[in-house]
């Protein structure tokens, strides 16, 4: 008997016998979801405003620098300096995205739904951390790519010029990675402490900005060693210290902060170790935080 079209057949409940993916794919799914959340993708229009505002600003800055360089031939900022110059926007971006990634889940009570699944409890914070770091790296790296493309197409030295630009770009991208990892781990740790997004955002801004006066105070103390170590006190200057030590002239040009190198003296390795320890401490605390949350 021919069935009329458009009839919905209730075939009842179907058991699932197909494949169930392992830990890596599940981690990947959570990571991608986090990365999309960071830029407001798959979310309401309201959630897109701030991330894309920041993306827009950094892109315009990069395009402007590229245009100036191609017209006047003057390098406004190197690839590595780009990250330093954008530090305020990076802080703003972290303050917007980190609460979106973790505070929202704490508040809505969705975590029991994650932790009652075969997801190891450390995977949730690690996937979110990786998503946050990737988002920051893309935020700082993509404009550098814009600058590179601009420079590569206007270079007068042919392939050699492009190659030289590439050698400048790669350390810049690595430096952006350092910014991303340090800021993501601090931002996410602060945001994971509260379910209120406004508090989390305020806390993140406070951690990054309240430490700046400490740096200023320490740098005028009557001790050369204290002055040279002063930049350890704030995440932004800590990252810049590592950059000055590892990148040297890529970060410091004549028209940049010329004497920064002398400001950290021979303590470069100390800055590098401090950055590693800071990230390690933040990740450890983040994991401890979620061990506690999961058992609730």
């Amino acid at each position, binding site marked *: 008997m021919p069935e009329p079209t458009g009839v919905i057949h209730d075939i009842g409940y179907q058991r699932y016998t197909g494949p169930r993916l392992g830990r890596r*794919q599940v981690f990947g799914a959570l990571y991608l979801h986090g990365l999309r959340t960071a830029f407001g993708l798959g979310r309401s229009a309201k959630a897109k405003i701030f991330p894309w505002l920041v993306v827009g600003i950094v892109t315009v800055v990069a395009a402007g620098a590229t245009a100036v360089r191609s017209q006047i031939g003057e390098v406004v900022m190197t690839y590595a300096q780009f990250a330093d110059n954008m530090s305020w926007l990076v802080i703003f971006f972290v303050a917007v995205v980190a609460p979106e990634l973790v505070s929202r*889940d704490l508040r809505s009570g969705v975590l029991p739904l994650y932790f009652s699944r075969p997801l190891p409890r450390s995977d949730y914070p690690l996937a979110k951390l990786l998503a946050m770091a990737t988002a920051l790296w893309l935020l700082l790296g993509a404009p550098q790519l814009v600058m590179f493309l601009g420079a590569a197409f206007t270079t007068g030295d042919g392939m050699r010029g492009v190659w030289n630009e590439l050698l400048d770009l790669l350390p810049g991208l690595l430096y952006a990675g350092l910014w991303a990892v340090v800021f993501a781990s601090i931002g996410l740790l602060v945001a994971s402490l509260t379910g209120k997004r406004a508090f989390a955002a305020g806390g993140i801004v406070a951690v990054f900005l309240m430490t700046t006066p400490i740096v200023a105070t320490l740098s005028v103390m009557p001790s050369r060693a204290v002055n040279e170590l002063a930049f350890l006190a704030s995440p932004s200057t800590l990252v810049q210290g590592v950059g000055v030590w590892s990148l040297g002239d890529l970060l410091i040009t004549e028209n940049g902060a010329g004497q920064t190198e002398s400001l950290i003296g021979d303590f470069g390795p100390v800055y590098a170790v401090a950055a590693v320890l800071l990230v390690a401490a933040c990740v450890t605390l983040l994991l401890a935080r979620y061990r506690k949350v999961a058992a609730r």
Partner: protein
Amino acid sequence: MPTLGGVTLIATESLTKTYGGGVTALADLTVAVEPGIIGLVGANGAGKSTLIKILLGLLAPTSGRVRVLGLDPTTESAGVRARVGYMPEHDALPPDLTAAELVTHLGRISGLPRTVARERASEALRHVGLYEERYRPVGGYSTGMKQRVKLAQALVHDPDLLLLDEPTNGLDPAGRDAMLALVHRIGTEFGISVLVCSHLLGEVERICDTLVAIDGGRLLRADHISAMTSATDVLAVEVSEGTEELAARLAALRLPVRRDGRLLLVELADDDTYDLILGAVAELDLPLHRLDQRRHRVAELFATREPSHA
């Protein structure tokens, strides 16, 4: 470990959980249940949620042993959680996601491939009765719809066991009936075992095969619902006058009788009980108002054992 012919769904042995502050949530709990719909009843704070968290491997017991679907959740928690669906008691839904997005995402976290997760999410939402609404943000849902989404996310990865913590919380009477009917359907038609937690005995006794009652972390009783009710049916007799005389006459006939307000409750032994009561009423020439069989509510079984929560 007690196993009933290898089909034990959940088994605990001397399970004890003591929290840091010396609070005992579970005390020496030994119980074994077979697949089906299991009602876990107890007052608030009786240890129901603690037991569920131990079953999920989210909390480690202080002492004792536990097995879920033949696995030990303290050592094989991922294996247990892959086969169990959990519906928490409290609000658990991000308001700005749609039900379809959320359930799909959680399906992927349970290990379903992307397209399968999307299909099964739609199916699960359909089974709980959400159709076009599933494309709207959860924030605008009614409590009943939110409860359904929570149930759907527990169902999306096709578990063998559902752990439902107070699924009727916050629902109006019609919503409660609908939710209980849904749970009953999952337990009978879908072939998925269900553990329903509730502080309302009257609700779960309507749908479950097995009843486990705990109080203060201790087991009060665990048995098939039929075993709890079968021998205890009573006849309720109401006469508009002469209640005392009738009670005395029935007692003289050696029928176990007790007063309950204007009613006389007589334990139903067999069909002769009807005749004896009718005969006694006729002899005394009393106006009979009512004579009906009452299922002895399970609550009355527990009443003597847990006076504080009766």
